[in-house]
């Protein structure tokens, strides 16, 4: 079962052609990194895969996915655990894996940017979706955070999940690489 398929996708944003003729297939257990310089359309590709943007031409077949980008999407006045619970699932295991279990009673607005990044990753991990879309997952993460994220992704792929990540940095682990021109 293919989790994500792009066929000859053309994306234009604000009159500028970001990419054309994009083909992309993501099978269970796969991890694909989209790389390229700033402004080349990495984030737009992720939002296209999430269904948040529409392609100008071409076909996008997508299965339900979970997205972690720079937006927190957690209620700032709530304790972290309750804010994560709004999105359903059981966040405890994901919080444990990402090393933020002890932050459960802390209001979201008090989290540091690294802790907030871990929280958005925990939201994705707790979602139960097979396809994970990560936009710049290493932003604000320290060495321990990168290590934990790497373990989380490995476990997800072993279960048969797939990951599409956009980053200009080298991601830990084994990734198939797609380079976007600037």
């Amino acid at each position, binding site marked *: 079962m293919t989790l994500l398929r792009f066929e000859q996708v053309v994306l234009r*944003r604000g009159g500028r052609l970001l990419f054309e003729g994009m083909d992309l297939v993501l099978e269970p257990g796969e991890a694909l990194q989209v790389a390229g310089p700033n402004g080349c359309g990495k984030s737009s590709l992720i*939002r296209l895969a*999430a*269904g*948040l*943007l529409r392609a100008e031409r071409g076909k996008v077949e997508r299965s*339900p*996915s*979970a*997205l972690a*980008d720079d*937006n*927190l*999407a957690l*209620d700032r*006045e709530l304790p972290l655990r309750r804010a994560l619970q*709004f*999105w*359903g699932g059981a966040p405890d295991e994901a919080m444990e894996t990402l090393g933020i279990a002890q932050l459960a009673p802390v209001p979201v607005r008090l989290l540091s940017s690294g802790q907030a990044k871990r929280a958005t990753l925990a*939201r994705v991990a707790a979602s139960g979706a097979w396809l994970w879309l990560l936009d710049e997952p290493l932003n604000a993460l320290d060495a321990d955070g990168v290590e934990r994220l790497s373990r989380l992704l490995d476990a997800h792929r072993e279960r048969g999940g797939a990951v599409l990540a956009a980053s200009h940095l080298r991601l830990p682990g084994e990734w198939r690489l797609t380079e976007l021109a600037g």
Partner: protein
Amino acid sequence: MIGDLITRDVRRGTTGTAWLPAAFFLLIVALMPFAVGPDARLLGRIGGGVLWIAALTAALQPIERLIEPDRADGMLDQLFLHGIADESVAAAKVFAHWLTFGPLLLIAAVPGAALMAMDGAALLRGEIALAVGTPGLAALAVAIAAVTAGLPRAGALAGLLLVPLAIPLLIFGAAASSGGHAAALPLEAAISLLLTAGAPFVAGAAIRASRT
């Protein structure tokens, strides 16, 4: 999930500044005796209309916090990824917004009617007209909030958009309050229903269009 969203929006609406629209409403009503003089007969006669002008002003007050914070924080994107249609999100927001706005306004209308020297029967007519009209007002506020979300100086623009669109509601709402015509209340109900039914589609389309 929709139930959770309504509960969340009501919780966020009732913490902090939930009383502000009602306070605004009372403030506008309280200005009237100063502006037109303390003649009780005159105040009583215009009371129904004044309550509606005040309700309209109060409806503008919370517009900027209805949609924009959730758009900017990615909440709307995440709800979409959870398979909830933008229209359903908008409908939930209309319902939650009315729950935090309508009942408080109905309560504030009691002292408001006293300030306008309205008698018991006039107060009852005014309350019925407000109860029928506030869902339409709340729906319109959510639709305008979605249309203006993310724009600079959205609050001022929202006022310019909302007030003209609320004029039919104002006409029949104020007429039903003053009890002049028997047909005013059914007509007000029809307009309120139209706004309530149409707003989720307008707001849903606006949320989709604002995604970049």
